[in-house]
């Protein structure tokens, strides 16, 4: 019997399909596709959720990212704790004329030239941990934490809004088809064709002057809800379209026919039959949407069309810091890094989540957020 070939795989025959970006989480070769090892009861049981959960658990990198993100959220939530107990100051309190007396030295918080003190880390017991900002002398760390609250709030709540709207539109459009579909799709097309940032900017600018008034509802221009609603609205087509596509595909499947034959009403079909099948797409989109939203918020705020004073966010901090880029680069770099870390952790986790739920997922919503530039589309 001839020895087993040493040549197997060394000449890089075309790798037969791996969707996993993480080698550890399983690679199915052409043969496995043929033999359908899924059939039968050899597998440790559990439905698709259990299987996905197991896959996710194996992806250490993704879990670590999730932990990082949660850590950031917790820190920002605890902003008042830091402000009151460690730094002893608020996010808007200026310390222009003060001096720092720690470690035997006396430093001016803001020098006459306008240059503010750099990161002290723990030298002053936590005060001015990351330094002071510009000539206003505010505690950068405190501002960072409070700003993070705004950014995270907007990112997450806007994602919720987008998800709800997208699910509704996607379900209605995909399931009913016909006129409803045409109307909704055309509207989505127009919003979609409008460059995301431009649309958001336009709305932002417009609403920045005077706030939003819809009948009795009056939203202040400085409210965080304005950028939240704008961002939530603007990204809806990017999620609604793929969802609609999936609904269209699912609609033809037998289990829907069966449900209809059993006399199930439309509401029931939509929410009990269709929705659970869309969950994995929805979850992944939602996660990656958070990343996109935070980046969009940063751009909007940077350009003055997002969070309005007196509220602040990481985006506004960057905008303020940019004026002093060469003298105090940290003022721009620090909030930018905060955004980068947060968005990266969400993206990595979202990526791992998608791999766990369906390594060969056909419907993809890539994290398009990197573009502070207006995007054509985020859905692939």
């Amino acid at each position, binding site marked *: 019997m001839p020895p087993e070939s040493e040549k197997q795989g060394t000449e890089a025959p075309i790798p037969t399909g791996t969707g996993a*970006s993480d080698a550890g989480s399983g690679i199915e070769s052409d043969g496995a596709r043929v033999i359908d090892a899924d059939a039968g009861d050899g597998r440790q049981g559990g439905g698709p959720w259990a299987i996905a959960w197991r896959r996710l658990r194996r992806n250490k990198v993704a879990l670590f990212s999730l932990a990082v993100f949660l850590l950031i959220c917790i820190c920002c939530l605890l902003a008042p704790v830091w402000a009151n107990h460690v730094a002893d100051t608020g996010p808007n309190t200026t310390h222009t004329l003060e001096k720092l007396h720690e470690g035997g030295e006396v430093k001016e918080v803001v020098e006459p030239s306008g240059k503010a003190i750099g990161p002290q880390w723990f030298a002053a017991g936590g005060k001015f941990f990351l330094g002071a900002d510009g000539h206003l002398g505010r505690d950068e760390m405190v501002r960072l934490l409070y700003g993070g609250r705004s950014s995270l709030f907007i990112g997450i709540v806007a994602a919720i809004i987008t998800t709800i709207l997208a699910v509704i539109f996607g379900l209605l459009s995909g399931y009913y088809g016909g006129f409803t579909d045409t109307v909704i799709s055309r509207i989505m097309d127009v919003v979609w*064709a409008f460059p995301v940032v431009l649309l958001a900017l*336009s709305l932002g600018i417009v*609403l920045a002057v005077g*706030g939003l008034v819809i009948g009795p509802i009056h939203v202040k221009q400085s409210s965080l809800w304005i950028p939240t609603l704008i961002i939530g609205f603007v990204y809806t087509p990017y999620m609604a379209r793929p969802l609609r596509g999936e609904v269209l595909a699912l609609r033809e499947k037998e289990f829907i026919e069966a449900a209809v034959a059993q006399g199930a009403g439309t509401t029931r079909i939509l929410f009990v039959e269709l929705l659970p099948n869309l969950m994995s797409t929805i979850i992944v989109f939602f996660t990656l949407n958070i990343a996109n939203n935070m980046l969009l918020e940063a*751009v909007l705020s940077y*350009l003055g069309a997002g969070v309005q004073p007196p509220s602040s966010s990481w985006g506004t901090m960057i905008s303020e810091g940019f004026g002093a880029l060469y003298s105090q680069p940290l003022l721009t770099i620090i909030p930018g890094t905060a955004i980068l870390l947060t968005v990266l952790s969400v*993206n990595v986790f979202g990526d791992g989540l998608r791999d766990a739920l369906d390594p060969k997922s056909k419907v993809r919503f890539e*994290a398009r957020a990197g573009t502070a530039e207006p995007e054509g589309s985020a859905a692939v």
Partner: protein
Amino acid sequence: MLRFIVRRLFGAIAVLFAISVLVFLIFNVVPATNPAQRIAGKNATPQLIENVEEEWGFNKSLPEQYWTQMKLIFTGKVVSYNSHVNVDTRIREGIPATASLCIGAAIIWLSFGFLFGFLSAVRAGGFTDRALTALALTGISMPVFWLASILLYYLTYKIELFPASGYEPLSDPGKWFSHLILPWVSLAILYAGFYSRVLRSSMLDVMNEDYVRTARAKGLSSRRVMVRHVLRNSLIPVITLFGLDFGVLIGGGAIVTESLFNIEGVGYFAAEALATQDFPSIMALSLFGAFFIVLFNTFVDFAYAYLDPRIRLGTSAT
């Protein structure tokens, strides 16, 4: 094929129309304050406001307003009351800069995106793949101004490797190039990461297809299978995306990059207009941008039809 083209063109026009209506609504109907006042700008005298009302039709019915404003914009008569510059002229002056920025960046990001995406897919699951994926994800997660600020600070200030700002016309190629390098890199890094991911996932999907297996079974060389079968069929989503992205950018979408690097293109103009709340300009720019998007959307549709005969010929019953 002809029918396809005609249908698409009509669709494009319809969408443009809808966008113009949307722009109109956003700027005139949504806000809570007096639109004429906003158009007239910050330094408006009551007389100016009245003039604006006349010229822009605010004292007429909505449809008439719409028509008047669109006429103004499309015939290039819109003048920004703040800066007293004809918007149309300003946009046209900005096009070379924007084009230089976008085309250069596109070349860079497509090259790297393709290279990395291809490598990632071919060595999927391996170390190369994971490293490139990490790189791509980081690129995608970067806020543009963060990257720009780091590049500006370290490469133009600390070490004066590149000039900090401004756009130099093509007449001086050396300067033109050195002024554009950093903005190109800034812009490209974002997109390169994304494109490599898209190509990678598209290729992985295609590699699983039955026809790739058939191609191998025919005895084709690995290279031929990879290029003529896998890559060819993986291009569709990438091209679709590129068309849209490029359309957005060239229509003035590179707002942040242009303003950060002082490249006085269309995007720069847009940033300025936004900062000064110059509504006439913003409206015109929105339409300008939307126009390019629709245009490129249409190009993409055509490219799609060219690439996939099923679209072109219509799937026949089997």
